[in-house]
Structure formats: C-alpha cells, structure tokens
C-alpha cells in the first residue's frame, strides 16, 4: 500500500490558516494575513499536484484501473451499531481531479485577491473566510463517506454565506447571502432525508461500500415502491435535490445570480469553479448506485440538467450585469455536466457521459474562473458591473482582453481549446443516449456562444464610454492568475481524461465523432457571428431583436419571474399564511387558553362571593342545607 497519509495536510493547512488568522487576525497587519493564506494555499497546491501526479502516474501500475483508497480515517461519532460517522480522506480519480481543481483555482484566487481586495476594510477577514472555504471544500472533495460529505457540504454552504455577505453593510449583499444559504439549506434538507433513507436501507455511509457492485445498495434495487419508484430511487432523488441546490439547478438556482453580490474573486472560486460543482461531484460519487440501482433517478438528473442549461442560457442572453451573465452561464454549463452524468451508463464506453461530465467540470473550472477573474479586473477598472457602462475597453486592458477572449472562445467550444473537447464528449454521449436532450444541448451550445460574445463585444468593443478615471490594467497580482488560467483553458483539453476518470476506473478509448463535432462547432461559430453583427458596433439590432421576441424577451429578462414565485411562496405563503398564524395562534389560542383558565377562576371567585354575605342567618342556612344535602346524598343516593 502506498502511503498517502500526508494528504491529511491538504485540508489541515487551510484549517490552521483559518484558525490562526481568525483568532489573531485583528492583531496582524492585513497584508500579513493575506500572505499567510496565500502561502498556505501554495503549499496545498503543491501537495495536491504531487498527489495527482503520484496517483495518476507515478504510483500507478499501468494497465490496471484506478482503485479508490482511504488515505486516512478516524471515527468521529457513532450513531448505531452499524452507522458510524468517520472523517477521513478518500482518494480516487474524481477526488484527485477535484483536488487539483480546487487547489488551483483557490490558489489563483488567493493571489488575485491580494491585488483585488487591497485596501478593503475586511482584508484579513476575507482571507480567513477564504481559508475556511478552502478547508471545507477540500474536506468535501476528500470525503470518505456520504455523511462526511454532508458535514463539509454544510460548511461550504456557510463559508459561501459568509463570503457573499462579505460587504455586510450593504443590504443587498446581506439579503443575497441569506437567500443563498436558505435556498441551499432547503436543498440540503433533501440531501439529509436522502441520507436518512439511504443509510436506513444500506446501513452504511461509506462511499466504497455504497458504490461497490456487490454492496448493500445494490440489493435494494427492487424494494417497496411509492408512486411507482422504489425506495432507493426516492432516496437518490432526495440526495440529488441536495446536489441540485448546491449546483444551482432549476428550480433551486435562484440564489446563484444574487450570490454575485459577493466580491468577484469569491464568485470565481465558489460560484464558478468549485462549490457549485459539488452537486455534480456528489452525483458522480454515487454514480454506480444511480446507474445500477436507480436509473429513474438518473433520468431525473439528466432532465434537470438539460432544462437548467437551456433555461439559464436563455436568461443569460438578456442580462446586462456582467457577473450575472456569467452566473447564468455557470448554471447552464453545470446543466451540461449534470446532463452528461444523467445520460451516462456504467462501465466502458457506456460511461462516456460520466467521463465527459467530469472532464467538463475540469475545463469549466479553468475557463469560468478565468472569466470571473477577468470580469473582476474589468470591474476593478471601471467600478461598475453593468455592461451598459462599458465599451471599448480593449485599449485600456490588453491582458484582460486577450485572456477574456480566450475564455469566451473556450466556452463557445471552438477547437482546439479545452471547452471544445469536453463539450463535444457530452454532446456525443447525449446523442447516443437521449435524442431530445441532445437537441436541447445543441441549441444551448449556440446560445452560449452568442451570449458570451455579446458580453465580450459589449465590454471590449462597442461604443466608447467616457470614464471618470481612465481605466488602467490591473496589477501583476491580478494579471498573473489570468494568464495561468488562460493557459489552463487552452491546454487542459488535451488531458487524457478517458484514461484517468471513468465510471468504473478502467480506461477506454474515445475519438472525436465528426457527426457531432462539426455541427456543434458550426453552431458555435454561428452564435459568435450573430453576436458580432449585433454588438461589435453600436447598432439598433439588439433592440429590434429583443422587441421581435416580444413577451418572451420580457420574461427572460425577468428571469422567468422565478424570484417572484419564490418570494410569493416564502413571504406570502410561509410567512403570512403559516408563520404569522402560528405566532397568532400561539399568543391567542394556546396562551389565551391558559389565560382563560386564570380568568375563569378569577371570575368564579367573584361569582360566588355572595355566599359570604356577612349574615349569620344565611350562614346557618347554608350550614343546615349542607347537612341536609349530605344526608340526602349518603342515605338516599349512596
């Protein structure tokens, strides 16, 4: 057995940084906290890469599959004889892949923030929270069992809450953070119920036992049915609900656009590259169970993914806040990943979707982080989020411009950038397994190219806006991460994912399917061309098109009124129709009843006071009649 115990350091370093800066943060100079955090992350990144290299290549015996191994495990709590909650480190292909993603992006964001957050009041706090998040995310990724995952799942949720609400004096940030937490919390309830059901049926939390083809989960395939689905299917749907919440899948996505209230590096880290893909990771973790025991649940995953990606892409075309466009784009891309998992089979080439989903997760992390960080550089320069305030920035921000363009091309799926490869695999998988979803995704590919280039042109081309201060390029701390990520976006497509990350750990062969690839590239180019026509120069075309779509445009612009629906359900129904009546009921009925008892007693005390009239004869009367009544009772009735 190869010793990987040192991987324990990977989550513990950020934890130590968190505790240190959290407790001593106010005593240190802000920059020091930043540097400590960044140094820590550097170490983590090195360790992660080392682990990845060892796991995938150095320690790997060629020709065998990639086994999953527990590098470390301790008991944390035992619930019942069989159900024990452990904390540990599980290494398997997807975990190691995620490790690389998380550490890379997090490290980049740490560096980037040194510049971006410079001079902010809560600088030290920012780094503290970042460390907390990184710790939680790494703990999630490395979880050995579903319960550990749930623990860290909650922790990333709360770190996300803290970071979104970083500007806590801004009411919009506060409400956004609240919304994010509560919506995901609601989804987590599903996750929890899923775990409850799953653990009840399988009597284990352990991933390795769960996914083992001979494990207890597999025995549950039949089982009791409810609404035509077996119990384990329901359990897995509930688990997926948790994933859907975290990954902002329709209809639990509403928190994601609002989460953009957080500082931009946070959006890049949490809401683009790492936390939001946790849902995908969760499904991927339990993939054998989904695939082998509950294909129905997998259909749900696929359709939710497909609908979300289309839904988000449409909305993204209409938004003007650049971070929101990116947020919807994220949602759309995660929809792709979900769909990929959903259409996948288990083992061999059938598992193409699984591989493609994870592949896309990887490449998406790179280019979406790049996009967000680029957007951050732009916001840093013009102090606005709204693309209508921008235009012609290519002259002022050359590095940002180039890297942004690369990212846009990547996401649009233009070969040979990484996005092309991963998206193509997904489309191939969909093409072979589910035609309607393929058509949706095909359309989404076009839309993606369109809205990204709409964004690109609006920022860097279009009209010359007069800025109060001449925008200037960001400092090196911010541009270096951009360049590194651009490098990643360009070249990560060449990684041999089909050998490394597969549904059953065995490598298989893939090749580019021109039946799918060519049309998909073409529709991407079509999207770019349309965007170029409409947005490269100032023109009336966008207005005409938007009016051409009529109500549909208005709907999309208002995000299909999903926020309003939620507000209606929470404020009007839950608050006004449940909570308020409960409060009223408690005060007036339950408590009123208790007070009523007191009132009745008091009242009767007044009613009977006439007996004590002060007259001897009446006393005598009562005395005598009392005796007589007793006599009657005990002689005649008793």
């Amino acid at each position: 057995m190869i010793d990987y115990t040192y991987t324990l350091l990977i989550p513990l370093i950020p934890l130590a940084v968190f505790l240190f800066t959290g407790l001593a943060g106010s005593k240190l100079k802000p920059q020091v906290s930043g540097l400590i955090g960044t140094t820590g992350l550097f170490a983590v990144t090195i360790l992660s890469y080392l682990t990845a290299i060892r796991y995938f290549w150095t320690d790997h015996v060629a020709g065998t599959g990639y086994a999953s191994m527990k590098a470390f495990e301790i008991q944390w709590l035992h619930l019942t004889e069989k159900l024990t909650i452990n904390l540990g480190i599980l290494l398997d292909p997807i975990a190691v892949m995620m490790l690389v993603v998380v550490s890379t992006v997090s490290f980049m964001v740490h560096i980037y923030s040194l510049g971006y957050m410079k001079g902010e009041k809560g600088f030290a706090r920012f780094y503290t929270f970042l460390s907390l998040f990184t710790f939680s995310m790494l703990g999630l990724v490395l979880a050995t069992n579903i319960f550990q995952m749930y623990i860290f799942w909650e922790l990333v949720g709360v770190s996300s809450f803290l970071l979104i609400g970083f500007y806590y004096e801004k009411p919009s940030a506060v409400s956004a953070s609240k919304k994010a937490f509560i919506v995901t919390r609601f989804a987590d309830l599903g996750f929890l119920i899923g775990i409850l059901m799953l653990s009840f049926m399988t009597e284990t939390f352990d991933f390795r036992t769960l996914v083992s083809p001979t494990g207890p989960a597999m025995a549950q395939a039949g089982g009791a049915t409810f609404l035509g689905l077996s119990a384990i299917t329901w359990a897995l749907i509930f688990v997926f609900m948790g994933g859907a919440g975290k990954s902002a899948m329709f209809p639990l996505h509403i928190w994601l656009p609002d989460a953009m209230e957080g500082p931009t590096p946070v959006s890049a880290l949490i809401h683009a590259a790492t936390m939001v893909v946790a849902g995908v990771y969760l499904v991927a973790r339990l993939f054998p169970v989904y695939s082998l025991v509950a294909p129905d649940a997998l259909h749900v995953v696929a359709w939710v993914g497909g609908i979300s990606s289309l839904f988000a892409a449409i909305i993204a075309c209409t938004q003007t806040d650049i971070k929101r466009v990116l947020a919807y784009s994220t949602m759309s891309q995660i929809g792709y990943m979900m769909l990929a998992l959903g259409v996948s089979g288990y083992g061999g080439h059938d598992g193409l979707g699984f591989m493609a989903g994870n592949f896309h997760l990887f490449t998406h992390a790179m280019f979406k982080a790049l996009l967000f960080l680029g957007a951050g550089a732009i916001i840093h320069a013009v102090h606005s989020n709204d693309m209508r305030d921008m235009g012609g920035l290519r002259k002022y921000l050359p590095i940002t411009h180039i890297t942004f363009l690369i990212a846009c091309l990547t996401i649009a799926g233009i070969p040979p950038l990484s996005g092309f490869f991963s998206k193509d695999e997904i489309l191939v998988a969909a093409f072979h397994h589910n035609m309607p979803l393929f058509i949706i995704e095909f359309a989404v590919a076009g839309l993606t190219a369109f809205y990204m280039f709409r964004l690109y042109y609006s920022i860097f081309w279009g009209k010359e806006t007069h800025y109060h201060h001449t925008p200037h390029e960001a400092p090196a701390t911010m541009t270096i991460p951009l360049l590194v990520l651009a490098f990643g976006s360009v070249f990560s497509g060449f990684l041999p994912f089909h050998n490394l990350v597969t549904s059953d750990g065995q490598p298989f062969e893939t090749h580019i399917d021109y039946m799918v690839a060519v049309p998909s590239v073409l529709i991407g180019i079509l999207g770019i061309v349309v965007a170029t026509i409409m947005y490269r120069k100032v023109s009336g075309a966008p207005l005409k098109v938007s009016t051409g779509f009529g109500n549909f445009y208005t709907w999309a612009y208002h995000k299909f009124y999903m926020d309003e629906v939620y507000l209606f359900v929470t404020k009007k129904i839950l608050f006004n129709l449940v909570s308020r009546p409960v409060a009223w009921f408690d005060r007036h009925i339950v408590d009123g009843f208790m007070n009523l008892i007191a009132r009745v007693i008091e009242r009767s005390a007044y009613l009977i006071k006439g007996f004590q009239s002060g007259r001897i004869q009446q006393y005598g009367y009562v005395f005598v009649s009392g005796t007589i009544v007793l006599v009657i009772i005990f002689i005649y009735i008793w």
Partner: protein
Amino acid sequence: MRHELSLVAIALILLVTDLMLKPSQKPRIIPVAVVLFSIHTILGFLPACEGILFGGMFRATALIGMMKNVLNVGVLIILLQSYTWIMKEENRDKMSEYFILMFSTLTGMYFMISSGDFLMFYLGLETATIPMAALAAYTHHQTKSAEAGVKLILSSALSSGILLFGLSLIYGSTGSIYFSDVAQLYSNAPMQVLAFLFFFSGMAFKISLVPFHLWTADVYEGSPINVTSYFSVISKGAASFILVLILYKVFFQLVYVWQDLLYIISVLTMVVGNLFALRQKNMKRFLAFSSIAQAGFILLGMIAGSQMGMTSVIYFVLVYIFSNLGAFGVVSAIEASTGKINMGDYDGLYHTNPKLSLLMMLSMFSLAGIPPVAGFFGKFFLFTSAASAGYYWLVFIAVLNATISLYYYLMVVKAMFINKTDTPIAKFRSDNMTRAGLILSGLGILVVGFWAQVYEFIFNLSVGLF
C-alpha cells in the same frame, strides 16, 4: 392527665396573681404566664403514664400527649407574638383575662382530644368554644370584634346543637356513649349514617370545612389578630385531631361512607377556600380563607384511614402551626406597630423590613407547599397518604389547588418584594418577645421538614384504621 392539671394550675395561679397585682403592675402577668406556659410545654414532652380515667371517659396515650404537645408549641408561639398587642393601653386592665381565657379553651381542647366518650368530648368541645367567643369579642369597644363574637357564639351554638342531636341519635341507636362501645355497635344503618352526618357537620364547623365554614372569615377578621391566629391553628388543629381519632376509632365501620364524604368535602373546601382567598385584600381575611383551603388538605390525610394517614394529619398540623403562625406573627407585628392590615400596605416591605419579609415569604412558601421549607413535607405526606388509599385524582385536584393557592401566596410575596411604593411601612423593631415568637416559628418552618425524626416519632405513635 398531667397536661390538664398543670394547665389548670397555671390558669389558677394567673387568676390569683392577677388579684394581687396593682393596676400599674399588671404587665408583670405576661412574663409569669409565658414562663409558666413554657415550663408546661417542656414538661409536656416528658414521658407520661398512659391509661384511662373516669371509667373510660378520659384516655391518655402517648399519641394524645403528642397532639397536646403540638398544640402547646403553637400556643406558646402565640403568647410570645401577642406581647406587643397585649401591652397596648386599651388592654391593660384585662390582660390576665386573655391568658386565662386562652388557657381555659386549651384545657377544653385537651379534654376533647383525650375524651373516651361522647360526653367528655362534648364537654371539652364546649369548654373550648365558649371562652373562644369571649376571646373573639375581647376588644369590646370595636364593632368588628363584637360582631365576630356574636357570629362565633351563635354559629357554634347552632353547630353544636346539630352535633348534639346527632350524638343523641348515636346514643339512641347504640345505647352507649363510650367510644369503644359505639365502635362495636355501629353499622351503616340509615339512622346511624344520619347521626354520623350530624356529628360530622358539627366537627366540620370547627375545622371550617365547606359548606360549614362561612363563619370563619368574619370571625377571623373581627377578632384581635392573635386570637385569630389561635383560632386558625390551635382550634383547627385540635378539632382535626379529635376528628381523625373519632373517625378512625369510632366510625371505622362507616369507613366507606366517610371516605366518600371526605372526598367531596375536601374538594369543595379546597376549591371554595381558594376562590375566596383569591380576592381578599385584608390580610386577616386572606389568611382566614387560606386556612379554610388548608383544612381541605388535612382531609386528604384522614381519608387514607391508615397509620400513615393519621401521621400525616398530625405532622401537617404541626407544620401548619409553624407556617401559619409565621404569617400571623408578621401580620400581627405589623398591625401592632403600624395598624396596617391590608395587602396593599405591604408594598415594598422588603426594603424597609427585610427580616419580617423573609419570614413572611418563608411562611407563604410553607403554606403553599414549596420546598425546602416544612410545608412541602407536610403537603407531600398528606398526598402520599391519600395516594396510598388510591385517591390519585383527589391528589391531583389537591395539587392543582395548591397551585392556585400558590398564586395568592405569591401575591403577598410580590407585594413585599416586587411592588414599589412611595409610602412603605416604616422600619420598625419589634420587642424581644415577639421576635422570639417569630424566630421560633421561622425555625420550625425551616427545621421540621428536614428533621425526619419528627415525622418518624409521630408515625410510631399513630394508629391506623384497622
């Protein structure tokens, strides 16, 4: 017989001393009375010979001796507490009467408790009652006092008339007035039940059980405060003792009748007593109604019909003496010093007279049955006895009533500790004798509960039904 003899002797000594004292020297009678009575009380605890006298009319047992001792302790505390009041100018010329009357009634109670037949019982009862009416009307220039006297004498005359009628029927149906004979010959024939009920209503009058209680509040309010405390603890205690003895010893054939009877009466008493107590503003009247409610609790001990039941009754009376005298002591000290008697006057008392307030609070908690003071133990044992006979619902009703009573006891606590006022009762210092009385009752409240030997001692003397 020692109790009776020494008490009569004391009364006579006081009578003679009183004759020899000049009017200016009258107050000297007080220390004499107190010292003599203290000696009497202490002597009472010495072991006494048991036996019967007068052909079975008079019985002396350790149990009965214990009951008398319990009463003695109460009377002693009352004597101490009445010092301030009795020293008032208006009482100067009739000081010794107070003691003599009190000792006469006490003698009556002794005989009543010790009685072995209905004749002695009746004689004791009346000896206890008639001087009590005189005591109630003691401050004869006050209309309230006079009214209290007349209400007491007339009501009690009616009640003893009915009781006597019952006794005559008992005699008629059994041919004997001796307890031992009656007990053998009794059955639940209608006439005997009727006679028993007549007898019971007379006793219920003494213990002030609903619906025979109506005199209580008025008499308590009108009488001088120390007389009131005497009524509420000593007279009630003695009547409870003899009732429990007679129920257990004489009417045990009727046990199924009187258990149901006590059930009804005790629920009525607790509820009505509480309901009336809720609205009282006058402290004396308030304590009167609270003592009615307490009487309802005493029945819970009797209903068990067991050794445990009798123990709990005696024990409760002991505890009740301390707690009620604690409360009455404070009320009396305040009334004697300031003349204030309404609950509203007690606002903010703690800030001026903390020790009195603390004693009052302890007494209130004790009356309400809140640990760790003695009242909790007293009530708890009563409930235990009732539960031992299976009366769980009765216990439940009783504890609920205890909760209601807690409400008004807490109102007093609230007035003293929480309410704020600009004109609190000014700080004052009681004389030493009153203080001794207060301290004694306070000690009793604190100690009797934890001191399990008290309970065990009583238990060993008590007897059960069968």
